[in-house]
């Protein structure tokens, strides 16, 4: 196996640069190394100013999402040897503003996430004295897949609609909305629908499907959104035929 592999990294210092540029480093090509190891090697031994986010290094925190050779990947789960002989191009996550080097501004996503109210909404909170909520394994199964989201934002990088339409809520936020809608303990379906049935909520989605392809936790946000479209349409028909029905 070759000793080294070329790592091409985006560099951008907002106080100095007008546009990002690419800088190349030679890093050891170790069998067990992932792209994150290569980035940390550069930061430790070559250029301490290289900036990037990472945390758990095992694919559960969602911090280390970046574009590796044009594909959105978790750098802690992407092996260097898969790209031999290289070079490996590491760029900041697509469709987000670049703050510095490989770090992107995710405030927009955080705003959209809180907009969908990703928590259990109850008309009236159950008092502690009444005991715990009971949920069967089958009830858990209906939303379990959507609860696996680690907010890594790879789906946002893959979604062309999110890149083109700043108002679109995006795959992860909608999948998480659906996760709570399908939760048997939740009573907030109607409240979330009011927010998301606006044109810029779910309807911007044209089912490209790339979000599901790149999701490292197999959440299938595209499926969640299509199910949500069907639910929203059923609700719309219901409100048309039975306007006196009231909030469900």
């Amino acid at each position, binding site marked *: 196996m070759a000793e080294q592999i070329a790592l091409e990294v985006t560099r951008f210092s907002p106080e100095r640069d007008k546009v990002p540029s690419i800088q190349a480093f030679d890093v050891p090509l170790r069998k067990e190394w992932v792209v994150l190891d290569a980035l940390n090697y550069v930061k430790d031994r070559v250029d301490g100013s290289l900036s990037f986010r990472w945390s758990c290094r095992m694919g559960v925190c969602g911090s280390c999402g970046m574009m590796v050779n044009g594909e959105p990947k978790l750098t802690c789960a992407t092996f260097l040897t898969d790209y031999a002989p290289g070079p490996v191009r590491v760029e900041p996550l697509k469709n987000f503003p670049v703050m510095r080097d490989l770090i992107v501004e995710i405030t927009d996503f955080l705003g959209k996430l809180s907009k969908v109210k990703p928590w259990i909404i109850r008309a009236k909170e159950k008092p502690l004295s009444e005991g715990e909520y009971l949920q069967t394994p089958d009830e858990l199964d209906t939303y379990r897949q959507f609860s696996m989201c680690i907010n890594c934002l790879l789906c946002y990088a893959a979604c062309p609609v999110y890149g*083109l*339409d700043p108002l679109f809520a995006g795959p992860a936020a909608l999948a998480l909305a659906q996760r709570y809608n399908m939760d048997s303990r939740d009573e907030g379906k109607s409240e979330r629908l009011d927010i998301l*049935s606006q044109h810029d909520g779910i*309807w911007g989605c*044209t089912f490209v499907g790339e979000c599901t392809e790149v999701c490292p936790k197999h959440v299938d946000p595209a499926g969640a959104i299509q199910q949500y479209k069907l639910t929203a*349409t059923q*609700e719309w028909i219901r*409100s048309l035929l039975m306007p006196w029905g009231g*909030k469900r």
Partner: protein
Amino acid sequence: MTKRSNEPLLWLLFSVGGVVAALLIPVHLFLFGLAFPLGWLNAPSYDALLALARGPAGRVYLLVFCILPLFHWAHRFRYTLYDGLQIKHLNELVNTFCYGGAIVGAIVATYLVVHIP
């Protein structure tokens, strides 16, 4: 409660139109667009085709066949123009062209179907 948009209606039309297009257009296109003009199969006579079209079932079928896929096109093409050409700021124009076009097509289809002798 904020006013809910009418997107669900448009999506419903798009979906039903897509089903009609997927189920029925292939065989129609194959027969009337390729097999008959190219002589692969014997085309039905004028009288036979007219008999099929003029019955009440035939007229309803033609209305469904022509109108719903047009609304499927309208919705899909609208979003393709938004995303493909990035002209979302012209959305008033795009919506008028797409849904207006479908409505015009629906009116033409209704007029024609009503006038089948």
